[in-house]
């Protein structure tokens, strides 16, 4: 028995991860049944993975009897980060032993991209994939969208006591976390109910349209989670239907709104939406960028029909800002100005507390207000200025935290881009991929005209990008803290 230097409660961590794995196995039942229904050979892959996951999960959960059950801040961070990695490690197995036969790097990338709702893919064509695999890709996004931990908090009462609070803080996006109910499990339940309700609505709406049931379900999963996996190579464009585009745009938009706010709106406080400065900013950014997009489209002579200047750009903007990463067919032709705008949208992301990625509009709002104050202070050095959002003054601690976050974010993008360019990728594509992955957008590398999908990136580059996705999804600190010496010291 070796002696651990730190006092992190590893036994308890293992036990909880074991329980979580069993939940993942339960989710795998869905693609397994789908494969059986469609009579596809991939049922074996899912069956084996599921059995292995349950076995290992049960072993971890029931063979270990931790002497103490308490979990503190450090355990919260570690558990959250580990959970995401472990989920990916088990979730990737069907890709490796199924008919797709992906390599470890490819499968890991694809799965991480799924759980983090990035939606970047290394598959060059997905039309021939089995229904089970297609559903699993979308389902992973759906689980990851609202959060694995959040789901667990809602269903396993055990975590209510120990460490649940820390894990909630480590996983939920945003600077501060709104609680809707006194207990964390109740808050988690409310958020998941909103999420499930929206998904069901979207699924039904899509099914009523040109999609069949299977495609409707898959797209509901990947749209609501702002993930962006599709079931066709041509993505949503395959249906060539304005109805589908409008419905998907609307729900992507909702996926980018703070779910706590959505809940309040749904329970009769619609006014809360408009009162929220973040929500207003979200709308304004979309509106402003839409105008610029239309100008660009017209200037590039791409306005062939009314759809080209209305729903197509709107779809693309919402898809990018909410980090969904779905694309409309011809947007490569809209010019490089549009690509530059998309850089900005990816960076912004949508509201905190939603399923979207990016740095979050909340933070941009803080930052811009702070910058405005600083500018004013250069002329009037003695003015007392405060950063005010939704009428509430934010403490300078919070503003510092936001600035630190954004600095780190930019640094990570830069480092990611530089490392990728070292693997031989052209500089613009390297940065675009780095951007796209840390923001969990997953717009294809094809956007910049380099290759069709991420399969063109080297194995090393894929691991780097997978790592960026994880960091981005857990909002930097949760993962980065694990690489500091202070974390492990007693």
């Amino acid at each position, binding site marked *: 028995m070796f002696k651990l230097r730190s006092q992190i409660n590893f036994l308890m961590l293992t036990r909880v991860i074991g329980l979580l794995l069993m939940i993942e196995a339960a989710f795998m039942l869905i693609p397994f049944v789908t494969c059986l229904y469609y009579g596809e050979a991939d049922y074996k892959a899912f069956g084996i993975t599921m059995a292995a996951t349950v076995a290992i999960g049960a072993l971890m959960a029931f063979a270990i009897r931790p002497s103490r059950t308490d979990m503190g*801040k450090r355990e919260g961070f570690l558990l959250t980060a580990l959970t995401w990695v472990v989920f990916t490690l088990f979730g990737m197995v069907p890709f490796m032993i199924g008919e797709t036969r992906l390599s470890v790097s490819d499968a890991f990338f694809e799965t991480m991209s799924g759980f983090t709702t990035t939606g970047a893919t290394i598959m060059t064509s997905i039309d021939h994939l089995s229904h089970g695999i297609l559903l699993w890709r979308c389902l992973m996004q759906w689980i990851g969208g609202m959060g694995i931990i959040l789901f667990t908090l809602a269903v396993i009462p055990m975590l*209510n*006591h120990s460490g*649940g*609070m*820390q894990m909630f*803080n480590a996983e939920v996006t945003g600077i501060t976390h709104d*609680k809707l*109910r*006194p*207990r*964390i499990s*109740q808050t988690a339940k409310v958020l998941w109910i909103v999420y499930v309700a929206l998904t069901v609505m979207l699924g039904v709406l899509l099914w009523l349209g040109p999609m069949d049931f299977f495609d409707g379900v898959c797209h509901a999963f990947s749209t609501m989670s702002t993930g962006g996996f599709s079931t066709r190579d041509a993505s949503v464009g395959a249906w060539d239907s304005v109805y589908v585009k409008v419905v998907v745009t609307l729900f992507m938009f909702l996926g980018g709104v703070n779910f706590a706010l959505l809940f309040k709106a749904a329970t009769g406080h619609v006014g809360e939406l408009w009162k929220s400065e973040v929500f207003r900013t979200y709308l304004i950014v979309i509106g402003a960028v839409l105008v610029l997009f239309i100008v660009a489209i017209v200037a590039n002579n791409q306005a062939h029909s009314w759809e080209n200047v209305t729903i197509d750009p709107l779809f693309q903007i919402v898809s990018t800002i909410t980090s969904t990463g779905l694309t409309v067919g011809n947007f490569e032709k809209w010019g490089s100005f549009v690509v530059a705008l998309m850089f900005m949208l990816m960076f912004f992301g949508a509201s905190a507390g939603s399923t979207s990625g990016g740095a979050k509009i909340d933070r941009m709002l803080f930052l811009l207000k702070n910058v405005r104050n600083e500018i004013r202070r250069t002329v009037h050095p003695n003015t007392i200025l405060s950063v005010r959002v939704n009428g509430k003054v934010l*403490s300078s601690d919070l503003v510092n935290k936001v600035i630190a976050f954004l600095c780190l974010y930019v640094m990570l993008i830069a480092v990611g881009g530089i490392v990728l360019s070292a693997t031989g990728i052209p500089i613009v594509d390297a940065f675009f991929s780095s951007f796209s992955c840390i923001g969990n957008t997953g717009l294809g590398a094809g956007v910049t005209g380099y290759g069709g999908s991420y399969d063109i990136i080297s194995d090393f580059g894929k691991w780097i990008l997978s790592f960026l996705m994880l960091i981005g999804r857990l909002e930097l600190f949760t993962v980065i803290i694990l690489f500091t010496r202070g974390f492990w010291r007693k």
Partner: protein
Amino acid sequence: MRIVIAGAGEVGSHLAKLLSFENQDIVLVDKDASKLANIDANYNLMTMTGRPTSMQSLRDAGAENCDLFIAVTPYEATNIISCSIAKRLGAEKTVARIDNYEFMNKENRSYFESIGVDSLIYPEYLAAQEIITALKRPWVRHWFELHDGEIILVGVKMRENATLIGMQLRDLAAMQPSFHISAIKRRHQTIIPRGDDYIKDNDILYFTTTRDHVDDLLEICGKINYDVRNVLIMGGSRIAIRTVALAGDDFEFKIIDDDIDVCRSLAEQCPDSEVIHGDARDIEVLREEGIGDVDAFIALTDSSETNILACLMAKEFGVVKTIAEVENLQFISEAEGLNIGTTINKKLLASSTIFQLLLDADSSTSKCHALLNAEVAEIEVRPHSKITRGAVKDLSLSRDMTIAGLIRNGKGMLVTGNTVIEPGDHVVVFCLSGALHKVEKLFN
């Protein structure tokens, strides 16, 4: 249970943490957001910034349908108004922290009920009571009477001369003693003992016994009872004033305070005691006031550290009984380890009242006493509750609670494994913190 707590001061935050640990739904309201930030991020409860006397913020906090509303801001007027508003909004039960002895009078109760305040917490008064109990029985650490003293819970610190040391509880039980060891406090930990636990030096044992057998404990614990007469109090706080008022003629008090204004008002409020202006940390002052002849020394300044150190100093001078007000919870175990006889903590006293109310939802005669890591509760057994379904040993009770004794037909008796609890009994339960909700289930 939905509980709204107004005021995130020391008592409020302590209650919030404690109750959230008891699996209750807690909303903590304070007008100062900075007080809430840390609690919000680290505990399983919801916080809200708002004034405790604003209808809108109380409504937002969910006072409309809460089961219990607790107002513990530092100002009693705010607390009373806040409770009154909450009650009008629809709170089931309200509790206000007060600071005025008059309010506790029985004849004033109906007035408070009429304005919507159901219960009152007066931590200073409870503290004074606790001090008086400690002065009357200097050999015990805790003395808690249940049902008019039919069952008594006594906490005693073991020293080398106690005959119990080194015994295994199983052997002890075989001797059929006239007491039940309900809990052992060892360093920072409280243990509900099982048959295979041993009693060690420096443990604090919690005995449950009946009135007639209390004196047996003196012998086995190696203690002698003596009378306290002269008491020196350091710090003229509100607790000091209450203690002097409550004690009547039983003791001779000397109060030392270093603030001349406080001394003047003390002299006015406590005419029968001697008030001295000076710093009680100064050895010269203590000698002058005859510290060597004092039977008990009580330190009640605002600083826990000063109180503990002053008590240690008094010990050096040969004072046998020392009592310190220790507001920092972590220091309580330390103070107990340093042989400071009794510690007074306002937070624990306030929680006792609140826990009683939590249990009160089920029975009207319950009583509760909060210790550092545990609670003692007296609960009336209702017909058909789980606890009546068999002999105690067959109930497979949770390991973090024990049934210490019971009162049947007004007579206290001890409980063994073979006792069958009947409806109408009053049961004394000793449980570790965080287990009170389990106890509640047993009795429903």
